[in-house]
């Protein structure tokens, strides 16, 4: 009697089937596997999921504020002014009787937009500079890095103040200003990563294989160098929220009655004695958002190691 070949049917050996399948689409299945591995690693971090949930809440508030509150952020109810937090008004009401929780939820729109724009400017500008600098080296590298050194000598908030002085106040100028302040960090990280990846064996192999510089840059160096930059982007998304709220706290943000988080805190400041929740609760919201982003980027960094 011959032993029947169970390999194709046994549930214990599915790897064999997988291998024959993955031969057709090797890259995609490798990527999928990496993703599912990362996901299962993240399942072991409850704090990460909590942070992620909070950030999703903030993003939802920014995209569809009407889903999260039934009040109107601009409707003034003079009879209901300066009420302490309650079940009806979770964060209390402000000096005009507007629901503060609603104002914070609607404020997320402007603040998240500002932070996203700022990080995009820093990400695109900084990564491009860093990529050129690290890849070409020599004189291009020297010129770009001196420029970055000079930008680093200007404290990021002051650089933002200078830009705001020149181009005016509002959410958009603040976002641009913050973006330029964050740019040097991206340039430096990208440069360091490119310089590391550039010397690896597969780049050399691609070069020997006859690939042009452009192709090596796009297909080999960029995907492998961008991991650290993406981690930095999550971290700096939080920093952008912080700096942008600082600028709008100083009075350079959106004009009333629209309000970013920083503006809400600045307005509430006048009522610190009588209604401490007015400045303190929106500030706590900002702190939680930044802390969540910080935690996410830290976990991503640890997992990718």
């Amino acid at each position, binding site marked *: 009697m011959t032993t029947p070949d169970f390999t194709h049917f046994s549930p214990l050996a599915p790897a064999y089937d997988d291998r024959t399948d993955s031969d057709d689409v090797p890259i995609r299945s490798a990527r999928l596997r990496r993703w599912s591995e990362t996901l299962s690693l993240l399942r072991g971090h409850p704090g990460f999921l909590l942070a992620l949930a909070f950030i999703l809440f903030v993003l939802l508030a920014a995209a569809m504020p009407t889903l999260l509150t039934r009040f109107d952020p601009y409707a003034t109810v003079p009879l209901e002014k300066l009420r302490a937090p309650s079940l009806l008004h979770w964060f209390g009401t402000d000096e005009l009787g507007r629901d503060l929780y609603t104002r914070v939820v609607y404020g997320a729109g402007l603040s998240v937009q500002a932070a996203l724009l700022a990080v995009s400017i820093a990400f695109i500008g900084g990564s491009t500079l860093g990529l050129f600098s690290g890849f070409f080296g020599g004189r291009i590298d020297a010129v770009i890095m*001196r*420029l970055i*050194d*000079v*930008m*680093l*000598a*200007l*404290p*990021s*908030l*002051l*650089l933002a*103040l*200078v*830009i*705001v*002085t*020149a*181009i005016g106040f509002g959410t958009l100028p603040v976002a641009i200003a913050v973006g330029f302040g964050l740019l040097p960090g991206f340039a430096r990280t990208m440069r360091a990563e490119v310089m590391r990846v550039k010397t690896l064996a597969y780049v050399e192999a691609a070069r020997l294989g006859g690939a042009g510089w452009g192709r090596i840059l796009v297909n080999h160096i960029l995907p492998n160098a961008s991991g650290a930059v993406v981690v930095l982007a999550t971290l700096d998304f*939080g920093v952008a929220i*912080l700096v942008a*709220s*600082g600028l709008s*706290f*100083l*009075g*350079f943000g959106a004009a009333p009655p629209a309000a970013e988080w*920083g503006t809400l*805190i600045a307005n509430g*400041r006048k009522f*610190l*004695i009588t209604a*401490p929740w007015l*400045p*303190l609760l929106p*500030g*706590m919201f*900002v*702190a*939680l958002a*930044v*802390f969540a982003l*910080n*935690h996410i980027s*830290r976990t991503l960094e640890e997992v990718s190691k």
Partner: protein
Amino acid sequence: MKTYIISRITQALLVLLGAYTITYVILYLLPSDALSLMLTASGVDADTLSAAQLAEARHHYGLDRGVVDQYLHLLGNLLRGDFGTSLSTGSSVTTLLADRLPQTLMLAGCAITLSVTAGVGFAYTATWLRWRPLRLALRRLPALGLSVPVFWTGLLLIQIFSFTLGWFPSMGNKGFASLVLPAVTLSIPSAAIYAQVLMRSFDDVWGESYIATARAKGLSRAQIQWRHVLRNAALPILTLIGLQIGNTVSGAVLVETVFTRVGVGRLAQESVLRQDIPVVLAVVTISAAAFVTINLIVDLLYPLLDPRIARAAKVT
């Protein structure tokens, strides 16, 4: 060594010149109409002026010169200690700065001392403790310190320590008591960074083989931590202090606004609100100079504190 010092000083000067140039370009060349910006800042409506008056104003602000000429003119004045005239108040920017700089320097000095002490102390305790839950909680705390907006911490401290407990004044510049809350507020983010970095390097040093040797010699944990770990892990903090000057300056703008203190930071906030270009240029130049100078000092001190670096510098 001498060539190292000279090249380092030249480099610092060039960076400073670059920072000044970038600020000048943004402030004077980026606005589409610098003249009307300056006229508005000094309280004049540009539309009410005749062509002759406009030309006169243009000449008064030095905008009729060529770009390079104006730049060199301003730079020349700056080198003679003349930062020009404030548009909104009409007084000399140099006097304004001289009035307010001591207050800010005192605040920054206190905050830096406080943040280094707190950061090092925190990392030391967090590494020293052995009870796991507390250890883990303490490790996450610096990240929280970094996430909290400086101006919010300020408001919280005012609410607790001035309004509720009445220990410290909530605003103003009078006496040492008024300095406590602002200095604490300003020191928190930097302290959190020092703590974070130090905890990491403490961990690294504990894994070194000379720690195993020290243990084998019979030293206690306390002795190892104090004599070997702290000394080897502390040096990078010096570089960090230099880099944190920028954050301290940025924080001073917010903290002085929250606590309504008279200082350079609030001068910056007020002059940006009024788009008072010469004052903004002066404040930014001064801060960049502070950043560059402190980092230059740190770089020059480093070889003295760590002889390995001086030797390496000699070889190359």
